């Protein structure tokens, strides 16, 4: 063991291209063997994962760390580990979309607590209630965090993801499936357990796929009933339906309590196609990208206004003939409780 380690180090030193690099590689290795020993398992495992400790041999890893650094993605975060002369690590943390940009082109931060504020709004200034939505703001960098700080910053960007990733790695991620979570709810969320299995599929498809959330969904309807919706490819798991999903589920549980009716609308074929385009544009979050004068796009604002002017009544409702109109469609008040 001892000899293979020293051989590895000798290998790293050979791969290093300058004296400085080989000194840093040796110091870095020593640092991992000493200072990192003291770290809690979860944090050490994450730091080792960042530099690919399980995927490359010691020589390659230290040569890379000492040379250009080792880079990893965590959600939309890009982490680059390098070595200081004393062997401790320095981390550059930024948005993956800013990978090629110079530090000088970005707003620099050195306090991990700033991560909370960066994570609050997206690039368009809209509030991000779900931290793992793929809408993290760009244009910032933490150019030189310590090992302790980088873990803290990551936990502010994506809370509890390191803890859950570690539990999953160790084989003891405690997944709580939909039924159990739904049945636990009280107060205004009491009704979410009324959703059927099919409705839970729609719920996961609406909120949990990779285009909406970067966590990899590990919960299902229950332990024995897997959902068909793709789980996603994220590095970190989702172990339980989150509060946003529960709040949305409440709304759907209320709507789904309504009985279906048959309506007859009069539309031209292109108007029907246009409604479908609008539905897609809203569902895919594409509305803001549609150009002002792009009247070829059914979800274009002028196109939608024309349709409304032509088909909607003054109060905005679509006049429709109802085949068997009974019952009511009361809508619960919106709440953020």
């Amino acid at each position, binding site marked *: 063991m001892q000899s293979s380690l020293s051989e590895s180090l000798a290998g790293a030193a050979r791969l290093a291209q300058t004296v400085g690099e080989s000194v840093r590689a040796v110091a870095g290795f020593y640092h991992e063997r000493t200072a990192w020993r003291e770290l*809690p398992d*979860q*944090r050490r495992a994450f730091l080792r994962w960042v530099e690919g400790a399980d995927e490359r041999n010691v020589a390659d890893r230290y040569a890379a760390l000492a040379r250009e650094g080792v880079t990893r993605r965590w959600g939309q975060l890009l982490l680059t580990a390098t070595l200081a002369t004393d062997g401790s690590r320095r981390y550059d943390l930024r948005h993956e979309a800013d990978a090629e940009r110079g530090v000088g082109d970005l707003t620099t931060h050195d306090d991990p*607590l700033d991560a*909370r504020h960066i994570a*609050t*709004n997206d690039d368009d200034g809209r*509030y991000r*209630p*779900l*931290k*793992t939505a793929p809408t993290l703001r760009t244009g910032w960098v933490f150019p030189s965090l310590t090992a302790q700080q980088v873990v803290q910053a990551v*936990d502010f960007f994506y*809370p*509890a993801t*390191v*803890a*859950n990733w570690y*539990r999953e790695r160790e084989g003891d991620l*405690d997944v*709580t499936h939909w039924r159990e979570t739904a049945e*636990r709810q*009280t*107060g205004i969320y009491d009704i979410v357990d009324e959703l059927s299995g099919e409705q839970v599929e729609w719920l996961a498809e609406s909120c949990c796929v990779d285009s909406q959330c970067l966590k990899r969904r590990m919960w299902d309807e229950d332990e024995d009933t897997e959902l068909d919706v793709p789980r996603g490819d994220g590095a970190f798991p989702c*172990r*339980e339906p*989150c*509060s*946003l999903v529960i*709040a949305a589920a409440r709304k759907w549980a209320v709507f789904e309590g309504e009985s279906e009716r048959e309506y007859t609308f009069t539309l031209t074929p292109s108007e029907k196609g246009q409604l479908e385009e609008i539905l897609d544009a809203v569902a895919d979050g594409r509305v803001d990208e549609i150009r002002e004068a792009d009247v070829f796009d059914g979800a274009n604002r002028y196109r939608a206004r024309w349709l409304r002017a032509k088909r909607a009544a003054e109060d905005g409702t679509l006049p429709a003939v109802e085949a068997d109109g009974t019952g009511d469609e009361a809508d619960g008040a919106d709440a*953020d409780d």
Partner: protein
Amino acid sequence: MSQALVIVAHGSHLNPDSSTPTFDHADTVRASGAFDEVREAFWKEEPSFREVLRTVEADEVYVVPLFVSEGYFTEQVIPRELRLDGWDVEQWDSDGTSADHTTLTARDVEGKTVHYCGPVGTHDAMSDVIVQRAESVTGDADVGDGFGLAVVGHGTERNENSAKAIHYHADRIRETGRFDEVEALFMDEEPEVDDVAEFFESDDVVVVPLFIADGFHTQEDIPEDMGITDDYRMGYDVPTAVDGTNIWYAGAVGTEPLMADVVLERAAEAGADVGDAIVRVRSETGGVAGD
């Protein structure tokens, strides 16, 4: 033994300012160095109550709810979501405003002791924060003489204790004799904040809502209900005269920096070793140093 502080708050899916006071007070406590770790957790944001305990490394965890009263959240939701083993509200032995702390374990984290504290809103030190809020909004460190003070609560929502907390602080502040008059008012029950001027003889009345964060209630409802603005989007002056009374509207008390002191006091009473942090934080945040 390392110790962590976890501040649990409501948060919001819609309003980004909801969590701001939580972050601010957490930062004050962090800067005091009293804890090895400080973490915020939310009902509506992340980390969730369900997952926050696994994000801290310390063995002793002090959980302080940033809520204004005892009730649904502090008694049911938080203990359930934190998975506190053997929690029973009787452990607080509270009359509705006297919850202190209890020591438990949590099912999802091995080897940690969780000290679950009563909410900040019913701690005695909260009365000082309300008074300090009155000082901040009037810009007068001696405010009181010639002034009335209205402590405003939501009223009968899900639990009766929400009104108890308002009365508790109104009574305590009244007993100090600092203000000419002190009244407890509510949004949804009598006596209503809408008619604030009617309840006071003083020409000047400071109105302090006992809310943790500014949001819909404190920024839109209360100002419009009191008539200090017709449209909250236009803002309001401080003070604004309504029916001949100058209304000094303070906004949510929870944004007052001295709140960090209440958080620390809760944790210290539950056994946290905070050294001289309480004295330091009190003096930094404008409270009176010492007891």
